[in-house]
C-alpha cells in the first residue's frame, strides 16, 4: 500500500524506531546538548563521553518521528570510537546526502547511514533526519544551547 514510500521508510528505519539503540540517560556524560524542533515536536538529548578527542560513548533520550529517531539511533552507533574530526566529516557527508545538492553522491562512502538518503525527496522531512547531527555538531563544539533545524 505504501510502495511510493519504500525509499523513505526502509525496514532499517522501522527497526531503529521500534528499538532505538543507545537509548539511555548517561549520568557521567562530558557533553550533553538538547535538539528540539518545536514545530513538529521532535525532541532529543544527546550525551557524549569523551576521551581526549575520541567519542568513547554516545547515547540519547527523547521522542520524535521515525525518521528523527532512526537518525539519532544510527548516529550514536556509528560515532562511537570515532575522533571528533571523523565525526565532523561524517556530519558533512550526511548533510550533503540529505540535502541532495550533489546528484552523484557516493552512497557507499557513508555506509549504514545511506538508509536515510530517501529524505532528499521529502524536503519537509530533511530537518527530521538532520536534527541529530546538528545536535552532535553543537556537542563537539562544546556549545550548550538547544539546537533546532526548523
Amino acid at each position, binding site marked *: 500500500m505504501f510502495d511510493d*514510500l519504500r525509499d523513505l*521508510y526502509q525496514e532499517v528505519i*522501522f527497526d531503529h524506531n*521500534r528499538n532505538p539503540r543507545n537509548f539511555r540517560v548517561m549520568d557521567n556524560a562530558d557533553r550533553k546538548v538538547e535538539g528540539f524542533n*518545536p514545530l*513538529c*515536536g*521532535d525532541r532529543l538529548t544527546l550525551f557524549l563521553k569523551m576521551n581526549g578527542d575520541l567519542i568513547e560513548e554516545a547515547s540519547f533520550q527523547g521522542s520524535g518521528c521515525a525518521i528523527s529517531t532512526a537518525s539519532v539511533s544510527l548516529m550514536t552507533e556509528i560515532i562511537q570510537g570515532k575522533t571528533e574530526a571523523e565525526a565532523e566529516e561524517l556530519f558533512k557527508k550526511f548533510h550533503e546526502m540529505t540535502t541532495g545538492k550533489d546528484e552523484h553522491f557516493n552512497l557507499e562512502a557513508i555506509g549504514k547511514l545511506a538508509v536515510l538518503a530517501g529524505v532528499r525527496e521529502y524536503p*519537509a522531512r530533511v530537518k527530521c533526519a538532520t536534527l541529530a547531527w546538528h545536535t552532535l555538531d553543537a556537542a563537539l563544539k562544546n556549545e550548550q544551547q538547544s539546537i533546532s533545524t526548523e
Partner: protein
Amino acid sequence: MTGFDVNKIRQDFPILGEKIRNKPLVYLDNAATCHKPQTVIDSIVHLYSHDYANVHRGVHTLSVRSTDLFESARTKVKDFINANSDKEIIFVKGATEAINLVAQTYGKANIQSGDEIIITAMEHHSNIVPWQMLCEQTGAILKVVPISLQGELIYEEFEKLLNDKTKLVSVVHMSNALGTINPVKQIIAAAHARNIPVLLDGAQAIPHMTVDMQELDCDFYVFSGHKLYGPTGVGVLYGKQALLEAMPPYQGGGDMIRKVTFTETEYNSLPYKFEAGTPDISGVIALGAAIDYLTAIGMDNIAAYEAELLSYATEKALAIKGLRIIGEAQHKGAILSFVLDKIHPHDIGTMLDSLGIAIRAGHHCAMPVMDFYQVPATARASFAMYNTKAEIDVLMNGITSLIEVFG
C-alpha cells in the same frame, strides 16, 4: 436535509478532481484552509477582466462599479452574520489581524495596569499572543480558563475568574485543535451581567454553522475569509457600532480620513475609520461570492451534513486499536484530532500523503493544548461540506495499514 447533494457540491470545486501521487485527492485539512468553488474563482477573474479599479475615490465608471461590488459584499457579510448595520463590518486581513486590531485599539484605550483579560486554555496562538502583547504594554494580566480532559472548557472556573478587574473576555467559538464548540451564549450572558465585553474568535466556527450576531449578542466577532470558502488575505471584524465608534483608529492612511491638514486630521466614519489604505478589493468581492454560494446551500444543511460525517468518522476511528482521539467534547464541530501509539503524527502525515490524503500533523498553532495533553503534536482530519463517507473510509483504511507497516 432539503436538497443537500454532496456529489453536486463536489462538482463545484475544481481542485477536488486533482490527483495527488496518482491517487484521487482526499482533502481533510479544511481547518487550516478550505478549497474554493468555481463561482469564487470566477468572481476574481470577472472582476479583473471587467470591473476593476480602486474603490471609494474615482468618479469614473470602473471605480463606481468596483465600489458597488465591494460595498455589496459588505452587505452580504452583514446579512450572513445578521449584524445590524454595514458599519459594523470591518474588512481586515484575517482573524489574526482582527484580534490585533481590537487589542491595540479597544484594548489600549480601555485596559490598564492590573486589569484582567480572560481567554481559555484551548485558544489558537492568534487569540493568546495579541493579549500577551497588550499585557506587556499596559501591565494588564492574562487569565486562562482551564479545560477538562474531554477538551471542554470548565465553565465554573470561568465564572470564578470573572471579577471587577476583568475588562475583556476573548474566547474561541470552536477550537481548531479539538473541535470543541464552546457554550458562548452562556459565557456572553455571564460577562454581560458584569458589563464585560466579549470577543469571539469565529475562524473555525463560521464555515460550519449559522452564526447570528443578534442571537449571540457578542461585542466582537472575528473570522477569516479563506476558511469560509473565500480567498486568503481577507477577513472580517464585526463590532457593535457603539463600541467601534468609541474606539481610536488602528492604522493611519488613506480612506480612513475625512480631512487632513498638517496640524489636524479628522477621521472617517465607520466602517472606513478602520480600513486605512487600498483594501483587498478582489478578496472582499470573492468573499461575497463565497457567501452567496453558502447561503444558497444553507448553513443549517451544511451543519447537519457535517455532523453526520463527524459521527461516522468518530465511530470508525474508535474502532482502530491504538488510536486515541484528542478532544471529545459533547458539542463538537467536524474536526478529528488523534494520536497513534508509538507513531509520530509527522510519520502519519507523510504516509497518508502517499495515499493522496491531506491531513494536518503538528501543534495546530495551539502549543498550550499540546502541553495539556502531553503530546508533541497530533494528527488532525478536519472536514468540510464537500467531504464524503467514502473519503473517511479511505482515511481509516490508510491509518489501519500504516499501523501494520510500523508494527
